[in-house]
């Protein structure tokens, strides 16, 4: 331990106090700018679809507010901003886009998918041999979201590729993110896929997950569902 006033220096980075007079030196601003822009740049880089939808200037304003309220807690800025999409969706200017939080959360889901642990998925070819009490789990990298209200897949996939969404078909849509061959793969999925993955994530065996789907969706296509999930590498043995 030493006697340097770390707390005073850190507070002055956020504009509180003068760090024992250090803020009067022009060089202090270099530290302040680097800290804040490092956080803001990470939030923007981690949410590319929000940049497309709302513009970088608006998003940077949200990011500056978010950084002050929720500064990073560790050095892994590649995954900074778990609550940023929800935060941005509540900011002035976002009122007209009620789906903004869910679309932005998919950007964060993409990061989680990208960074998650490796695991060998259940191959699609072995599905036919699965017993009813087989214990499956979602792949550690799999992330999924269903919206009964908004066309999440159209909104997010278009924004993610840098194009503002146009000619939307207003229907409920789901999105699955997975890593079947190294890189992140995104695909649209029906409601039954998300219900099924929710059930597996809650610890249900195959038969329990099937029951959950039947309770939620009229006449689900289980064969197509299982082929899609296994094909996307979204399932692992538990």
């Amino acid at each position, binding site marked *: 331990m030493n006697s340097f006033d770390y707390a005073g220096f850190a507070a002055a980075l956020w504009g509180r106090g003068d760090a024992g007079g250090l803020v009067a030196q022009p060089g202090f601003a270099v530290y302040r700018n680097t800290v804040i822009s490092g956080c803001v740049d990470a939030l923007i880089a981690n949410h590319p679809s929000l940049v497309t939808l709302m513009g970088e200037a608006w998003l940077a304003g949200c990011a500056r507010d978010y950084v002050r309220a929720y500064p990073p807690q560790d*050095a892994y800025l590649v995954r900074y901003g778990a609550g940023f999409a929800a935060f941005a969706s509540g900011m002035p200017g976002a009122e007209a886009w009620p789906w903004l939080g869910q679309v932005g959360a998919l950007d964060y889901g993409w990061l989680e998918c990208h960074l998650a642990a490796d695991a060998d998925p259940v191959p699609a070819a072995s599905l036919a041999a699965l017993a009813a009490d087989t214990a499956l789990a979602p792949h550690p990298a799999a992330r999924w979201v269903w919206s009964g209200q908004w066309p999440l897949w159209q909104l997010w996939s278009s924004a993610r590729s840098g194009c503002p969404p146009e000619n939307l078909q207003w229907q409920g849509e789901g999105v699955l993110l997975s890593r079947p061959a190294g890189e992140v793969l995104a695909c649209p999925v029906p409601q039954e896929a998300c219900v099924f993955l929710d059930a597996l994530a809650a610890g249900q065996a195959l038969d329990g997950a099937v029951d959950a789907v039947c309770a939620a969706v009229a006449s689900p296509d289980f064969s197509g569902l299982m082929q899609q999930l296994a094909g996307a590498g979204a399932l692992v043995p538990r």
Partner: protein
Amino acid sequence: MRLGAGLGIKPQHFDDALAARETGLWYEVHPENYLAAGGPRRAWLRRLREAHPLSLHGVSLSLAGPDAPDAAHLSQLAALVFELAPALVSEHLAWSRLDGVYLPDLLPAVRTRQLLASVCANIGRVQDALGRAIAIEHPAHYLALPHEMDEAEFLNEMARVSGCRLLIDVNNVYVGARNLGYDAEAWLAAIDADAVAEIHLAGHSADPLLGDALLVDSHDCAVAEPVWALYRRLIARIGARPTLIERDGKVPGFAELQAERARAQAVLDGAEVCV
């Protein structure tokens, strides 16, 4: 293979970096960007390591902070080091973590005997966890602080006491000397040659408001000529050392980075080999 001139590497240059075959070439990355549990980043780094010598250059252990290095971060770093067996591992004489908040910069502290003791204890913790010596870089300076110890004296003693090596960033010396009015040549001349394990070269830029009165270690342009001159004289004095070209902003094409790297390699090739 002896390490010559290397490059700080970005994901957009992965294919070019993997294929390059220049003598002495090596690459450096920030481990913080690769502490993922799995996935393509980690796989990318493994492939790079299979093809080239690698250096892990940490930015977040906060060795000059008031606390010991974060245990969870250190254990993840150790796992990466054991997996990749990099040629070099380094960190900074700076702090970036306080009360559970990460401040993404290399923040300064006042150089006192107390600080020297706490930094050496922190370096010892890291070296124990990694099972190897690390090199420590001095950051660029922008503030006049009431230091009790000269920076070169502090670094030399830190290396002697902790057993760490030194990573000398010639651009940081130049930027700090210009900002705070000290003599860069004398600063470099005072560093123990035997302690130097690695050298960094990078570009700096003038502050947008204050111009040349405040230089910023921006890493977003080519290495400046006065920095090359200091580097040549340093190598002439201490002999060849692994030398890294850093570029973190406005990153140009790989060929342009390779041309700058070749310039450093030529300086090293012209130096008497110093073991």
